[in-house]
């Protein structure tokens, strides 16, 4: 079966994000970019499906600027077979991304679409669901376990206070949660092999989708700085502070 994986290029998880001086946006100059961690998990899951003999081909798609090829190459090094870049410099919103992915789904006809439950840059947690609505495919979101069973996939979902397993008819959409798997490192021999794997570039226009933002970003502010801790000289003062200042006792 064919598996389609969507990956996004985002600010590196480990980078201390700074806000531009005029509060217009996050400062991205000279900032390390990487694959969204939830997308890494999606790639890993696809590769495991292939290693188990369930998936026969993994197609990885990214939407973004030309440099997003780097993240596609990473996915190819991790085990994906072929890449598609939908090149655009525009700011992307979940609905646009879902429409673009729908275009790819129609062309590629995958049995499973694997994607992150959210990206760590805009934290929307909407794209998978919107893609489900647009394509009419069933969705298993927040997956912590994915088990393909004939023409069904059983997806264990992380929900408040527990787990819930849903059986979806294929083709289906699965969005990944943190505990689904632990992604591997890209091995150097595989990175070299990945250079020879096909990577096609297309555009939103080719897919008949207009990329237009319907939101305007008003202001970005960093979280309030935490005030420094204090030292207390006795247990009694500590108890007093916890009671009267922190009001936690």
């Amino acid at each position, binding site marked *: 079966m064919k598996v389609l994986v969507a990956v996004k290029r985002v600010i*590196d*998880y*480990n*980078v*201390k994000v700074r806000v531009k001086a005029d509060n217009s946006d996050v400062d991205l100059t*000279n900032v*390390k970019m*990487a*694959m969204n*961690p939830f997308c890494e998990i999606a790639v890993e899951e696809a590769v495991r499906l292939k290693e188990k003999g369930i998936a026969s081909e993994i197609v990885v798609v990214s939407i973004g600027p030309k440099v997003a090829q780097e993240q596609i190459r*990473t996915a190819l090094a991790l085990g994906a077979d072929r890449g598609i870049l939908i090149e655009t410099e525009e700011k992307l919103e979940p609905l646009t991304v879902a429409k673009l992915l729908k275009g790819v789904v129609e062309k590629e006809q995958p049995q499973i679409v694997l994607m992150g439950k959210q990206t760590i840059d805009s934290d929307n947690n909407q794209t998978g669901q919107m893609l489900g609505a647009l394509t009419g495919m069933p969705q298993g979101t927040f997956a912590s376990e994915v088990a393909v069973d004939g023409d069904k996939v059983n997806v264990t979902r992380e929900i408040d206070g527990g787990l819930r397993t849903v059986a979806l008819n294929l083709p289906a959409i699965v969005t990944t949660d943190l505990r689904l798997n*632990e*992604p*591997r*490192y*890209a*091995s*150097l*021999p595989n*990175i*070299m092999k990945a250079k020879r794997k096909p990577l096609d570039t297309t555009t939103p226009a080719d897919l008949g989708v207009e990329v237009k933002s319907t939101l305007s970003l008003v202001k970005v502010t960093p979280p309030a700085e935490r005030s420094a801790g204090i030292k207390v000289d006795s247990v009694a003062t500590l108890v007093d502070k916890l009671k009267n200042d922190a009001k936690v006792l």
Partner: protein
Amino acid sequence: MIQTSGNSMTTLTQDALVEQLSAIVGADKVRTDADSLETFGKDWTKIYPPKPSAIVFPKTTQQVADIVKFANAQNVALVPSGGRTGLSAGAVAANGEVVVAFDYMNQISDFNATDRTVKCGAGVITEQLQTFAEEHDLFYPVDFASAGSSQIGGNISTNAGGIKVIRWGMTRDWVAGMTVVTGEGEILELNKDLMKNNTGYDMRQLFIGGEGTLGFVTEATMRLTRTPKNLTVLVLGIPELDDVMKVLSQFQSTMDLTAFEFFSDKAMQKVLARGDVPAPFETSTDFYALIEFEAVTDADMDQAMVQFEKCMEEGWVVDGVISQSETQAANLWRLREDISETISEWTPYKNDISVVVSKVPPFLRDIDEIVTREYPDFEIIWFGHIGDGNLHLNILKPDDLAKEEFFERCGKVSTWVFEIVEKYQGSVSAEHGVGMTKKPYLEYTRSAAEIAYMRAVKKVFDPNNIMNPGKLIDA
């Protein structure tokens, strides 16, 4: 064996001592409670039972000078104490000394973007300086696993090295100027932060790595540098120890590396067993090298690939992974950086030795042979800053062996190891200093004449042997 020679020859009573110190720093900056004496009387070595008579916390250089003058007048031995992460028992007070702790001298000031310098009190934590630099879009490159606790004063006094020496050098290279209080209580301002200053003896260099035996560092102007771009980490699997250095010179033939570390599979397995760092490979090899470099352009990355392919062709390397994000880079670094802490559970006997890079392979072979021959029952963990010729030899204590017996048997290893060090003209302490643990072995690296000059220098700056007595050399 516990042998120290710090003195507490003072005739002052404990009360008088505390009173007079309080007169200098204020009563709230002198501590004699059991907890403080225990904590501030020892460093990371934990071999010598701490027994200081008081801990004093000066806030200014003048107070430090007053403490030293008082100590001279009353014949009180002083032990300077930084972050106490030292690995040679340099900051240990086991003989009733007064510990001078720099924790309150932790101000960062006078940042100058043009000179790319910043002034640090001796008590500034290494990581505090790193963070400060980062906030000003600059970089303080001296880094190691204990940077979250060690202090600039301690780093200077041990000339700390760490994981980036291959590219940025040791602490010595980053001290633009410093204020010290000599053993006579004299305050010296050294080098005025100048880049060029050929006006005779550079006395900074005596205090850097001086382990507090000549004077105390109270302030230092530290240099900062450009922030490296896109540091990328490779971990390579290397079956043969001998090939590690071939890999190094292959990569260095076209690239400037920012780190070249190595560790054995035994070392890595201990870290992986903790379960919080992902394994880099499915199958293991006996040794690994961790290489870090700046991947600024695609050409840099291509170079790394070319060198990797070459190492594969030669059969030196059988597998390799590369970081695709800072998170992955940090996780790969943890394979190396977490070793020290992880193995501390086995009360390891540690040696920190170095030779010139070209001599590393035969040197390693000689040592490995002798240790495995004499101690087949001991587990040996190798890792180190091998790109600098610096190796950490760690022998783990078998569970069924008592601590005393273990260290006694290891004492014999030391002699053999140091004889090999001497044969290869290496150092018995590459970056951890001499303190008390390496003092008996100094002669394997320094000639008798050199040691005699060191004593003479000590006499000049500290005639009454007040400053950290019994460390590094005997006065």
